[in-house]
């Protein structure tokens, strides 16, 4: 296979990489004045990367001797990632302009582009080293983004915390990779799968090594998707990071990490399904429970949404636990709807600011929002009911899909425990609705930005019952994407 074909398959990453480098040069010479131009160009680059997905990049198969895979699963995840990244760029300028302290610099969109390139590598990886490189590229950009407001202590702390814990996670993952490599003799997913299929995993030295490798790899991935028990960094980082960055963390990297986890589980370790399923089930239920219980006492809305994201990852993992093509399709469906809900929620959080434009993050400040800003309150209520999985909102269909897959795979106890825990989660989502609708207003938020308002409205429409009309297309696409893994 010649290089042209290989590059055609990796075209989205090429576009993103070149775009990021070029924009970095612009940023270096242009300085802060170029921020706006760089931001919009970055959005255009992301759109270009989406366009680049058409053709061999979404159907080419193996590239670079099996290190990289261009299939519809990767393409689907990449579309989600690029859209979320674009929204994260678009929502930033207004926030930084109003917030005292650091201004937005042109590095912000560049870092997001680099991160998006890394995420694309993650979901396309067909080799443990490609995976690791992609993961690190994404993470390094993310560490910088978390501490983007250098003069804000919380932001700096968030960046440091994210870095230290992320490095630990990378270490765990790398250790797992080395074990897997040592006992299978390869880093290619296909060959690893062959080794797992050949070893009976019954207790001799080799199978113990394989099992340990699997456990460590999954622990590393659990860290990245912030599944319990590796979730500790999430609330602190989400709270400290600037809100647009938090929105980014909660959406795109999460899709990438879940996509990576799914691919490793199904492609590399598919034959060891019985082994990793236990891990996934535990992580799923523990995330749902802890995400729900720990959120109850939160006063800060960003922390609350952090726990909500932990909770939602748990539900997505239920689809993975099923281990079937339907299950993987359900995970993708879940993440699609989750991205819409979570970006919408964070866009609403961006609107929470006092008359001077300084951000407010306490939940109590939402009191009576339905009187002062009825449209905003309605949108947030839609997102909250949707995150809680209450029909007729689209979040219900996300949960429908994963539980359908779980029941189809015969995992009844998992499904029953999962739904029972989801009632606990409903409680804190209701608390936000209660604060907005039942309590008396305490203050008025400053006026919103038109662009952000439009994005909120778009997210609300997707999440509203109108979203159900997209189900046939969504399920056809996700099933096709999932089928490419099996």
């Amino acid at each position, binding site marked *: 296979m010649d290089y042209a074909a290989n590059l055609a398959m990796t075209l989205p990453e090429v576009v993103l990489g070149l775009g990021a480098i070029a924009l970095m040069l612009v940023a270096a010479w242009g300085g802060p004045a170029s921020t706006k131009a760089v931001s919009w160009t970055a959005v255009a680059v992301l759109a270009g990367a989406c366009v680049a997905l058409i053709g061999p990049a979404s159907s080419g198969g193996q590239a670079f001797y099996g290190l990289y895979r261009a299939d519809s699963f990767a393409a689907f995840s990449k579309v989600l990632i690029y859209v979320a990244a674009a929204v994260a760029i678009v929502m930033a300028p207004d926030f930084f302009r109003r917030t005292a302290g650091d201004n937005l610099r042109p590095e912000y969109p560049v870092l997001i582009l680099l991160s998006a390139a890394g995420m694309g590598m993650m979901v396309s990886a067909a080799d443990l080293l490609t995976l690791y490189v992609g993961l690190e590229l994404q993470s390094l950009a993310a560490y910088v983004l978390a501490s983007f407001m250098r003069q804000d202590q919380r932001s700096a702390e968030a960046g440091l915390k994210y870095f230290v814990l992320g490095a630990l996670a990378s270490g765990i993952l790398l250790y797992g990779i080395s074990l897997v490599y040592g006992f299978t003799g390869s880093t290619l997913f296909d060959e690893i799968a062959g080794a797992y299929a050949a070893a009976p995993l019954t207790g001799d030295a080799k199978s113990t090594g394989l099992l340990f490798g699997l456990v460590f790899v999954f622990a590393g991935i659990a860290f990245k998707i912030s599944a319990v028990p590796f979730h500790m960094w999430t609330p602190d980082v989400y709270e400290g990071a600037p809100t647009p960055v938090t929105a980014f963390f909660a959406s795109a990297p999460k899709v990438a990490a879940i996509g990576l986890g799914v691919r490793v589980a199904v492609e590399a370790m598919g034959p060891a399904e019985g082994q990793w399923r236990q891990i996934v089930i535990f992580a799923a239920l523990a995330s749902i429970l802890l995400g729900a219980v720990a959120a109850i006492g939160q006063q800060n809305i960003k922390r609350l949404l952090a726990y909500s994201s932990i909770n939602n990852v748990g539900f997505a993992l239920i689809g993975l636990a099923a281990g079937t093509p339907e299950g993987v399709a359900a995970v993708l469906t879940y993440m699609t709807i989750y991205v819409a809900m979570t970006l919408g929620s964070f866009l609403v959080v961006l609107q929470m600011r006092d008359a001077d434009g300084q951000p407010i993050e306490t939940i109590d400040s939402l009191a009576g929002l339905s009187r002062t800003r009825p449209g905003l309150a309605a949108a947030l209520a839609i997102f909250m009911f949707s995150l809680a999985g209450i029909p007729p909102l689209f979040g219900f269909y996300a949960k429908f899909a994963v539980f359908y897959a779980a029941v189809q795979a015969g995992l009844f106890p998992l499904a029953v425990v999962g739904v029972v825990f989801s009632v606990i989660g409903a409680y804190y989502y209701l608390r936000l609705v209660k604060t907005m609708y039942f309590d008396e207003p305490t203050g008025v938020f400053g006026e919103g930005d038109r662009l952000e308002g439009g994005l909120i409205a778009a997210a609300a429409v997707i999440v509203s019952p109108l979203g159900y009309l997209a*189900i046939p297309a969504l399920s056809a696409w996700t099933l096709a994407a999932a089928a490419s893994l099996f």
Partner: protein
Amino acid sequence: MSFPILSLMLAIPAAAAVACLFLSPSTARWTALAATLVNLALGVVLWLSYDIGGAQWQFVEYAPLFGRFGWALGIDGYALLLIVLSVFLMPICIGASWQAIEKRVPEYMSAFLFTEVLMIGTFAAQDLFLFYIFFEAGLIPMFLIIGIWGGANRIYASYKFFLYTLLGSLLMFIAMLYMSITAATTSIPALMNYDFPPQVQTWLWLAFFASFAVKMPMWPVHTWLPDAHVQAPTAGSVILAGVLLKLGGYGFLRFSLPMFPEASAQLVWLVFGLSAVAVIYTSLVALVQSDMKKLIAYSSVAHMAIVTIGLFAFNAQGIEGAMMVMLGHGLVSGALFLCVGVIYDRLHTREISRYGGLAINMPRYALLFLLFTMASIGLPGTSNFVGEILSLMGTYQVSTTVALLCTTGIILGAAYMLYLYRRVVFGEIKSAEVAAMSDLSPRELWLLAPIAAAVLWMGVYPESFLAPMRKDTQILLARIDRARPAGDSLPTRGSGIVPAAHAETHAQGSAH
């Protein structure tokens, strides 16, 4: 496919609900009233054009819009009657809130119209998941109605209502997933004829029971109801008691009995046991209430228990009686909550002890309140009598003990309702405030009079209501007859009365 009248009945209130959000309070009121009246008219058209004794499912619509499930609507006799009940009560609810609700009127009207959409949708859905969506979505507007426009303790009540019913429904949801995968269909009519293995049925039945028992509500999971009723605004209580409680009974009728006949028969002891406890216990609790709404709420639990025993009697009297109790209770408890609302609007308290002697200064009110009190007790000539007698007769054929226990509910019902009526309406006027209360305004009269007429209609000529569901009951019985449980009544066929002797007894009877 014929004219999609059911979709239209869903679309009109949905469109009006969205429109209300953007209107001024007074326009929102009129919009809501107009939309609900149009829906009432459509409901009447639906009833008149329903072909009694015709196809089991009529007005069928189907569009495979949502991938795994579709937009499937269609009604049988049971659904028809419950839809008619819903659209009948809705304009009354809007009217009852005309002056009582002053703050955030557009949102209020919108929430009520959404509730109407969801109620009609629940009764008309022919797809398992479409049903679930409508069924469950009803929580959102009700949560807001209780929480925003409710009484002092409204937040606790709204949470309790929401989380209680959500937990029950989610178990049902898992059962639905299993059913749709196993039977490879989401069509309710198809599932009603699908035979699940008996041991699986038990689990599925219990999962559905978890949901419907909470919705019903059955003892001991009824505790959300008094809280929700007491805190909800008057119209909220009317809709809650009038229609939302019927979802549980409708669920038993639509899912538990035809889909899991063996499990229903096997667990009949559970239903009978809980119902018998509910009738006696909640009636006694109602007797000691000092809050009018709470008293009526507990009486609802007792009445709903009569519904459940009738449904699980496995015979035509029981099932038709249960439906009649549901319809009758929907009207009567709705009217009773309106009656409470009328005096609450004047004195702003629900404490029974603050009232007294209303017969003196509110004679018209006293008369209508008396009618509904008697209907609630089940006096012959009113709606509830027909239902209760049929339901208890059906039960008597299966279980003498349960029929005996549940019939005490009628006596206790008379006790608490008459006691309530005596304290509020008879006696001396308690205070100057009470003396200053004016009689029913024309608006209030217009709200109560149609219900009074319907209550009498159901009591005097129940055939209008029994006819649409007769065929459905036969179909249902044919389906579940194979599982009919052996009761403790052990009825033996009489030796037969010779016609001459019968005529003689009859003559003696009329001579008395």
